[in-house]
C-alpha cells in the first residue's frame, strides 16, 4: 500500500518544491520555452532580486518551473540585483502572412542598470526561444546612453500597430534612463531558424525630463511616459507637468513629444515658482481598448450599471506625484484620467471631463439644497483616491473568451466582467490595480471612474453620515445655547415637522447636518463661537510695535534673519485668519486683527527684525475689540515673546484633516436659505486671488473637492429595502434628504447655525461654545493583500488564461481553464507573488512562495 502511494507520488507531473523567491521586485508575462514542456507556452518571469536570478512561474498551475534536478525551482542567474523586467511579442508571420507562435523577447535590468561594476547600463536578454533558460547576452547601453546614466524603467511594445502590414517580426524594448533619455532597442527574429531573438542597435531619444514609468498605446502608435519633471513649456500656461506622449507611429527618435497636463493650472503663488499647469506623475497605464462607462441619468434607477458610453479613445491613467498634489495644491492626489485627444486648457489641463456635472448634463438631478450652498462640478474628472502612494498601475479587461466574458450589456459588442467587492458583484469594462506603498493592491473601477467599495456608500448603517454629536453645553442664565436649524426640507424620514426649529440635542443636531457621498470624509468637526483657529492656539509668538505705533504679532521665535525658527505662515489662507479676528494674549488682553500680511514692509520697524512667514497687524488700543492698553500693546523697547492664540471673530468651523473650514453666520429665521452654510467646491479653486478674503475662499474650495464618484443608485431605488428608500425625491436617510442621485456634486458639509430659543440679534452664544460631531465617509475601498505578510508590493501584471495564442488557437496549457476569470500577479518583497482575480473573493487569494 505504502509502495503504491510512493509510486503514485513519484509519477506526479511536478512535485511542489516551492518557488523559493528571494526579494521579488518585478514580474512580467511572456510566451516562450522552458524545460517544463516541449511546446511553447505562457510563463510569468519574476525578478528575484536578492537571489540575483529570475524564476519562471506557470500561470496555469501557479507552480515554478523546476530545475533539471527537480528538487529546486529553475534559477536563471542574472547580474546582481535584477529590479526591472520587460517583454514583448514579435508578431511573427509566415510567407502567407499567417501569424506564427514563436517566443517573445524578455529582458532584465539591474539596480541602476549596470550589470557589473563599472560596466555601464545594459539589458540582459533572456533565452526564451529554447529550454536553456539563461541570459543569452548582454545588450550594452553604455556609449548609447550618456555617461553616468541609470536605467529607471522598462517597457515592451510591438514595433508596429496590429493593422500594419507584417514585414519582418520585431518588437521594441523601451528603456527610460536618467538624464532625460529614452533608449529604444529593436529586436528581430534570427534568420537561422533557431527562433532566437536578436537585438538591434539601440537608439536614444533625448527628453527634457526623467522617465519614471512607461506605457504603450494598444496600437503601438504612442508611448506615454510618467515623469515628475516639467515636460514642456506652454507660452501661456507655463511649465506643463503630467504625462508625455511620444509619437511612435514612425521613428520614435524623431517622434513629437506632446505634454499632457495632469491637472489644472496653478493660478498663483501657492505653489512657489514660475507658472505651471498640471502635476507630476509617477505611474502610467493605458487600457488595451476604449472603456465603456456608466450612464449618467438620474431618471433611470439602473443607470449606474448601464455601461453604455464608450470613451472616445483609450484614456491614459496616471498616478500623481505626491509632491505636487493635495488639498493645498491645484489638484488632489490619486490616479487621474487623461484624455490624450483633449486640448490643453487652464481649468483641467488634459484631464477627462467630469461626467457628473448637472449643468452639462441635465439628466443628472442636482442637489436640492439652498442654491447658495450647492456645489458645482469641477471642470475635470476628480482623481481616483488611493490610500498611500500609488506606485504602479496595471489594467485588466474582460477575458478573451469563456463564461466570465459577459456580453449581455446594453452596449452591443462591449464585453464586461465581474468585480467582486464585499458589497456585491458589479460588472465592469476595465479595472485598474494600484500597488500602494501601504502594501495593498487597491482596485479602481474604470467604468465608474471610482474605487469599488466593500460597503454601501449611501445606504445602511455604513453610509456617509454623522455618527456622533457632542452638543454645546446647556445655556447658563442669560446665555444662548448653540444649536442647528432643523429645516423642513431635510428633516428625517417620517418626521412631520411643519416649521423649522433649532435643535440643541445630539439626535436633533445629527439630523440637521447635511453630508454628501463622495465629498464628506471621515473626520471630527468642531463648530465653535469665537473658537481658536486650527493650529493657532497657545503658540509661541512675537509682539513688536513700530516706531510709528503700529503693533504686529508673528508666530515665530527669534527676531532677526537667520535666527528665526518655529515659524508659522500666518498669512497662509488655509489657516483662515481674517481681519477682525481676535489675537489673545492669554491672561493679559486681546486685540483685533487689522490686516493679515504675508510680507511686512514697514520702514518704522526696528532694523533687523524679520518676519519670514508674515505677521498680523493689530488695531491700536481704543479700537473696537481691543482690550489691550497702550502699555500692554505699545510698550517701547525690544519685542516681547508672548504666547498667542488667534480666535475667530464669530462662528468658525474646522475639522482635524482640513483645518479651517469657514465662518458660518447665525440664522435667525425659519427661512432655510437664510445664512445656510456649506463648504462646497466652486471655481474659486482655479482662479487667481489677491485679497485675503479671496485667498481664504479659494483655500476652502480646495478643501471641498470631490473625493470619489459613488456608484449607488439614484432615487427612487429600484430595489428598495424599506419604505424610506422607495420615496422620491430624497430616498436616502437622515442627512441625505436633499440628495436624489449620489453622483451629483454636493457640499462636504451643510447646516444652519441657530440658537436655542431663537433669540433675536445680537444674541450670540458664549465664547468657546461648541458642537463637535464625527462623520464617516461610507467608503471602504476594495483591495487585496496576501493572506499572510505582504510587504513591499511591486507592479501588478494582468493575465488572461482564456486568451488565444498568436495563431488564434486555444492554448493547450490552459485546458480546463476555459472559463477562468482574469488574474493579476503581484510580486512582494517578502518572498511571495500574490495571484488573485477581481472576480473572486479575498478568500481566494493565492500566494506563490
Amino acid at each position: 500500500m505504502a509502495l503504491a502511494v510512493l509510486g503514485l507520488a513519484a509519477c506526479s507531473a511536478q512535485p511542489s518544491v516551492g518557488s523559493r523567491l528571494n526579494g521579488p521586485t518585478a514580474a512580467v508575462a511572456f510566451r516562450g520555452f522552458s524545460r517544463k514542456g516541449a511546446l511553447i507556452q505562457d510563463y510569468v518571469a519574476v525578478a528575484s532580486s536578492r537571489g540575483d536570478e529570475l524564476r519562471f512561474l506557470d500561470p496555469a498551475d501557479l507552480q515554478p518551473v523546476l530545475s533539471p534536478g527537480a528538487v529546486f525551482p529553475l534559477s536563471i542567474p542574472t547580474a546582481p540585483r535584477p529590479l526591472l523586467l520587460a517583454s514583448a511579442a514579435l508578431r511573427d508571420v509566415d510567407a502567407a502572412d499567417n501569424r506564427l507562435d514563436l517566443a517573445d523577447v524578455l529582458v532584465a535590468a539591474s539596480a541602476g542598470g549596470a550589470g557589473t561594476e563599472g560596466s555601464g547600463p545594459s539589458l540582459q536578454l533572456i533565452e526564451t526561444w529554447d529550454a536553456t533558460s539563461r541570459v543569452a547576452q548582454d545588450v550594452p547601453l553604455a556609449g548609447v546612453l550618456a555617461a553616468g546614466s541609470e536605467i529607471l524603467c522598462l517597457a515592451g511594445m510591438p514595433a508596429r500597430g496590429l493593422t500594419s502590414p507584417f514585414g519582418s517580426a520585431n518588437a521594441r524594448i523601451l528603456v527610460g534612463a536618467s538624464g532625460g533619455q529614452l533608449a529604444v532597442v529593436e529586436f528581430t527574429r534570427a534568420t537561422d531558424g533557431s527562433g532566437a531573438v536578436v537585438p538591434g542597435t539601440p537608439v536614444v531619444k533625448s527628453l527634457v525630463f526623467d522617465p519614471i514609468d512607461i506605457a504603450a498605446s494598444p496600437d503601438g502608435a504612442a508611448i506615454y511616459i510618467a515623469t515628475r519633471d516639467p515636460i514642456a513649456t506652454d507660452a501661456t500656461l507655463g511649465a506643463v507637468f503630467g504625462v508625455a506622449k511620444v509619437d511612435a507611429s514612425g521613428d520614435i527618435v524623431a517622434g513629437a513629444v506632446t505634454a499632457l497636463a495632469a491637472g489644472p493650472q496653478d493660478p498663483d503663488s501657492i505653489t512657489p515658482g514660475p507658472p505651471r499647469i498640471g502635476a507630476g506623475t509617477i505611474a502610467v497605464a493605458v487600457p488595451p481598448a476604449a472603456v465603456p462607462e456608466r450612464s449618467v441619468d438620474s431618471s433611470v434607477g439602473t443607470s449606474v450599471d448601464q455601461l453604455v458610453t464608450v470613451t472616445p479613445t483609450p484614456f491614459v491613467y496616471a498616478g500623481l506625484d505626491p509632491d505636487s498634489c493635495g488639498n493645498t495644491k491645484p489638484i488632489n492626489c490619486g490616479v487621474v484620467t487623461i484624455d490624450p485627444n483633449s486640448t490643453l486648457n487652464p481649468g483641467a489641463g488634459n484631464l477627462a471631463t467630469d461626467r457628473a456635472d448637472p449643468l452639462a448634463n441635465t439628466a443628472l438631478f442636482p442637489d436640492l439644497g439652498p442654491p447658495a450652498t450647492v456645489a458645482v462640478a469641477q471642470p475635470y474628472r476628480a482623481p481616483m483616491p488611493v490610500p498611500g502612494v500609488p506606485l504602479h498601475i496595471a489594467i485588466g479587461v474582460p477575458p478573451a473568451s469563456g463564461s466570465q466574458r459577459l456580453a449581455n450589456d446594453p452596449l452591443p459588442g462591449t464585453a464586461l466582467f465581474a468585480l467582486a467587492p464585499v458589497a456585491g458583484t458589479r460588472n465592469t469594462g476595465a479595472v485598474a490595480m494600484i500597488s500602494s506603498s501601504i502594501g495593498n493592491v487597491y482596485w479602481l473601477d474604470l467604468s465608474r471612474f471610482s474605487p469599488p467599495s466593500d460597503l454601501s456608500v449611501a445606504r445602511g448603517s455604513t453610509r456617509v453620515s454623522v455618527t456622533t454629536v457632542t452638543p454645546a453645553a446647556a445655556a447658563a442664565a442669560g446665555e444662548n445655547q448653540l444649536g442647528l436649524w432643523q429645516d423642513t426640507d431635510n428633516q428625517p424620514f417620517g418626521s412631520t415637522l411643519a416649521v423649522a426649529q433649532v435643535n440643541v440635542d445630539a439626535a436633533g443636531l445629527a439630523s440637521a447636518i447635511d453630508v454628501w457621498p463622495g465629498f464628506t470624509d471621515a473626520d471630527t468637526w468642531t463648530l465653535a463661537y469665537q473658537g481658536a483657529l486650527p493650529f493657532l492656539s497657545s503658540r509661541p509668538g512675537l509682539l513688536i510695535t513700530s516706531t510709528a505705533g503700529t503693533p504686529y504679532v508673528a508666530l515665530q521665535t527669534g527676531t532677526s534673519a537667520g535666527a528665526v525658527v518655529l515659524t508659522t505662515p500666518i498669512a497662509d489662507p488655509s489657516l483662515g485668519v481674517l481681519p477682525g479676528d481676535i489675537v489673545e494674549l492669554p491672561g493679559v488682553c486681546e486685540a483685533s486683527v487689522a490686516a493679515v500680511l504675508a510680507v511686512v514692509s514697514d520702514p518704522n520697524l526696528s532694523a533687523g527684525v524679520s518676519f519670514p512667514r508674515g505677521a498680523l497687524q493689530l488695531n491700536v488700543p481704543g479700537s473696537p475689540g481691543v482690550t489691550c492698553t497702550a502699555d500692554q500693546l505699545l510698550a517701547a523697547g525690544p519685542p516681547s515673546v508672548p504666547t498667542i492664540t488667534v480666535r475667530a471673530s464669530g462662528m468658525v468651523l474646522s475639522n482635524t484633516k482640513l483645518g479651517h473650514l469657514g465662518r458660518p453666520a447665525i440664522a435667525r429665521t425659519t427661512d432655510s436659505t437664510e445664512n445656510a452654510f456649506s463648504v462646497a467646491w466652486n471655481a474659486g479653486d482655479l482662479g487667481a486671488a489677491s485679497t485675503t478674503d479671496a485667498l481664504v475662499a479659494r483655500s476652502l474650495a480646495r478643501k471641498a473637492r470631490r473625493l470619489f464618484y459613488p456608484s449607488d443608485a439614484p432615487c427612487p431605488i429600484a430595489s428598495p429595502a424599506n419604505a424610506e428608500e422607495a420615496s422620491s425625491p430624497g430616498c436616502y436617510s437622515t442627512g441625505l434628504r436633499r440628495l436624489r442621485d449620489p453622483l451629483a456634486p454636493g457640499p462636504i458639509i451643510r447646516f444652519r447655525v441657530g440658537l436655542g430659543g431663537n433669540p433675536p440679534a445680537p444674541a450670540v452664544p458664549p465664547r468657546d461654545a461648541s458642537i463637535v460631531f464625527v462623520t464617516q465617509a461610507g467608503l471602504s475601498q476594495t483591495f487585496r493583500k496576501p493572506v499572510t505578510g505582504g510587504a513591499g508590493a511591486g507592479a501588478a501584471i494582468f493575465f488572461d488564461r482564456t486568451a488565444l495564442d498568436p495563431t488564434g488557437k486555444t492554448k493547450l496549457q490552459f485546458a480546463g481553464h476555459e472559463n477562468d476569470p482574469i488574474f493579476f500577479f503581484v510580486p512582494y518583497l517578502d518572498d511571495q507573488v500574490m495571484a488573485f482575480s477581481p472576480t473572486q473573493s479575498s478568500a481566494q487569494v493565492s500566494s506563490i512562495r
Partner: protein
Amino acid sequence: MGTRSARLLASSALLLALACSDTTRSPPPFTDRFYYPTGLAVRHVDDAGAALDCRGGDPGCHTRLLVASSNFDLRFDSATGGTVMDVNVDAVLQPPQQSLQPLLPGGAQLGLARIGSFAGELAVLDKTTCPGFEGAQVLVASRSQNALYRVTIDPTGQLTCGAGCAVPLESTFGDPYGVTVACGTFDGIPQQQRAFVTYLRTPNSEGQLSQIDLTNNNARTQKDLGSIAPAHGTVYDPVSTRLFATERFGEVGKSPLRWFSLAAPETPSSADIYSLIRGAEVRGMALSTDADATTSTPPSRGYLALRIYDADVATSTGVRPSADVGGALAVMDLTQGPSGQPAMHLLNVVPIDRGASEIRIVPRLDPTTGLQKVVAGNRLRDLVAVTCTDDNTVALYDDDTGAVSKVFDICGGIPGETEPLPCALGDPLMGKQPFGLAVEKLANGHARLYVGSFDRSWVNVIEIDPLNPAAGPVAGPTTANPAATGITGPAGWVRIGPERQ
C-alpha cells in the same frame, strides 16, 4: 587509607576553593583593532589638530575616523571592554599602504579610550558640530553601564576618559543607544549645548530621551515622547531646532516618527509610518541638505531607513517577529505646513534589503564651488546611503531619480579584484553585517563611505562619485595611480582593520 582519604579531601577542597574564586578577570579589550564596531564618525582637523569644517583632500584638512567597538560577545570586561578608537585616515590611505596585516599602520591609530560594553552611536562634539564648544569630545552611550561617555579628543588625537567621563543615565530605563548633539538658542537662552540619548528599554515601551546639558555639569532632563514605542535614534535639524526620533517596535500596528522643537516648549508630534507602509519599523533617519538658515527654511525631506516585519505574524503573536521580511527607504515631505509643523507626507518608497540600519546623506558637491551640484538650473537632490545589515549590503538611493542607483553587494563584481582579502567570489563585498556608517565629502567632489562590518570587525572605505553613483567605487586621488601609491586593491575600495579572530 585514612591518609589517602585526607589527601583526596584536601585536593577537593583546594579545587573547590579555586572554583569559588572571584579573582578571575576578563582580559582587557584589543587596543589595536576594532571589535564588533557599532558607531562610526568622521571629523576633520587642521594641521594643529583643531576641528575644521573642510573637505577631505583640501590643503591642511586631515581626516579622522572615530570607531566605537562594542565588545558584543563580552569577551572582555563588561565594564571597560568597549573602546573608542581615533584613526588617522590619511595615514591609512597614504602610500605606501601597508599589507593586510596589520591594517592599522604605524601612525594610523592616534588614540584609544576604554568605555563600557555595548556601545551605540557616536556623536562628535566640537566647534563644527556645536558652535562655541571649546575642544573636542566624542560622545557614546554604553548599554552595559547605562552611561554616556564624554571622551576627550586632544589635538594629537589622543583619547582620554578620565574623571567625569562617564555620565550616569536614567536608572529606570535601560539600553541607552542613540546620541545626538544639539546646540543653539533653546527656550530663549542662547548658546545652549545639549546631548540627547535614547533608551531601547523602557517601562511599557515608552519613548524616552535624556537631555544632557553639556554646559551645566551634565544636568539631565527626561523627555517623554509617548507610550507607543521606545526611541531608537535621533537626528537634529538646527534650522527648525527640531529633534526627530526614530523608534523600536513597541506595539503592533504603530510605528511613530516623533519630533519636537527645542526653540520653545513643544509637545512632541508624531506621524505613524505604519499607516503608510504596513509592517514598517523606523530605524534610521537623515535630513535633506537643502535647509537654509538665512531664510528659516528647514530641510524639505526626511529619509527613513525602514525595517519591515511580517505584520500578520506580529498581530497574531503580539510581538515583533525576530526576522525582517523586507526593507524600504521612505522619503517624507518635511516642508512646513500651515500649522508650522512638517507636512509628513510620504513622497516615495523604494525597496532595499533587509536589516536597514544606519542612513547617511552623501553630499553631491560641485568641486569648484563646494556647494551642492546644480544641473540645468536645478539643485540636485540628495544621494542617500543605507546599511542593510541582514543582507550584507549597502544601498545608494538617488533622490533625484527616485530610484536605487547602486547596491554594494558581493565580491566578484569588480574586474581584476584581488585585494583586500578576504573577498572571495560571492562573499559579501562589505564585510558581514555592515552596520555603522559615516560619510566624508572630498575636495574632488567624490565622497568616501566608511562602513563598519559588525561581524568581521573591520571598516570598509569606499570612494564613490556621487554624481554617478551607479558606477560604484571609483578611483580616488590615492588610488588612481597604483604604481605611485602602492595601493594594489581595487580602485576606491580599501579596508581598515584586521578580521576578527
